[in-house]
């Protein structure tokens, strides 16, 4: 049966952004996947996941989310201006 890529993308996105879930997955991948009610096809696909790559990707995404500069909203600029 063809894998549901959307389901896989969603679970990967959760691993990339939810550190506690990621850590549980690293420790007990199958238990975590079954608890999250993933389909058998997605569970099978993730059995041989590139775990080293996943760990580096999570670290990299976390760092980028922390340090990405976002443009200030109008109210943020107003608040900053009012401080002076």
């Amino acid at each position, binding site marked *: 049966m063809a894998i549901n*890529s959307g389901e896989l993308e969603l679970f990967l*996105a959760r691993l990339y952004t939810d550190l506690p879930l990621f850590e549980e997955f690293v420790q007990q991948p199958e238990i975590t996947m079954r608890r999250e009610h993933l389909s058998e096809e997605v569970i099978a696909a993730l059995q041989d996941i590139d775990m080293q790559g996943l760990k580096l990707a999570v670290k990299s*995404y976390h760092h980028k989310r922390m340090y990405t500069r976002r443009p200030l909203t109008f109210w943020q600029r107003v608040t900053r201006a009012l401080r002076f």
Partner: protein
Amino acid sequence: MAVVAANVKDRVGLGWRPEISAQILQHLDHIDVLEVIADNYFSASKKDIQSLAFLSRQAPVSLHGVGMGLASSQPVELRYCERMARLVNQVRPEFWSEHLAYVRAGDIEIGHLAAPPRNEQTVAATVRNILTARNIVGSLPHLENIATLIQPPASALTESEWVTEIIEKSGAPFLVDLHNLYANAKNVGQDPFKLLHQLPLKHVKTVHLSGGCWINEVDGQGERLLDDHIHDVPEEVFALLTCLAQFCPQTLDVIIERDGNFPAFGEMLHQLDLARRALQKGRELTCAS
């Protein structure tokens, strides 16, 4: 300063960054083309948009999106496409570009580019998203291959097969990021030149060059190359550019991307010259063969 060889007028330029904007403006005669991160202007003031539109009348400008998430099973966000369409209309760039990546799933924002599984399902979904974006923005984006530290699971296609199918089925121009290609190849023990030849080279219109660094795997057993955009373009990537120029008869726009750790601007200009020399060498090899 464009590279001219056998009727091919390649152009070499830089990613526009606020930290080096003043120096870029002072040295526009040495820079053929500029690439602006579109997302930084979606909520910009009218004055900032007008400045950008003015810049696009002084030099060839392209808009480079980073948050559209075209390579996803999920339909592309129409609101994002509309923002890009509005900015394209205001700035009138020569073209716009985006990545073959997904950036969100459900209501989760990853915050950066991620590689989806490379299979027929994501090929079909990506092509649909590209055509949706084209219908809203009014033109096809140049599509960029991304670097990925993780080999995407459930991938029945190789990276080259997946990229080629998407480019050919959508008809979109290909923006080949040579450092991304180089990093991906090195990280799986492949020859980057062999990988380059497996890509749809006849569709390449734009090229990205950047640098990176080797990082230790978390358990310390090995290393992977991280495309961090804060290091100089390595020699091997210039060699890939020469190879590309040798086998691509069409004009190429080459952009050097640098996001931080900026060297003295003279060094940035030197990197542009290295790119021009690499292109020239490739064109001469084509003429000689």
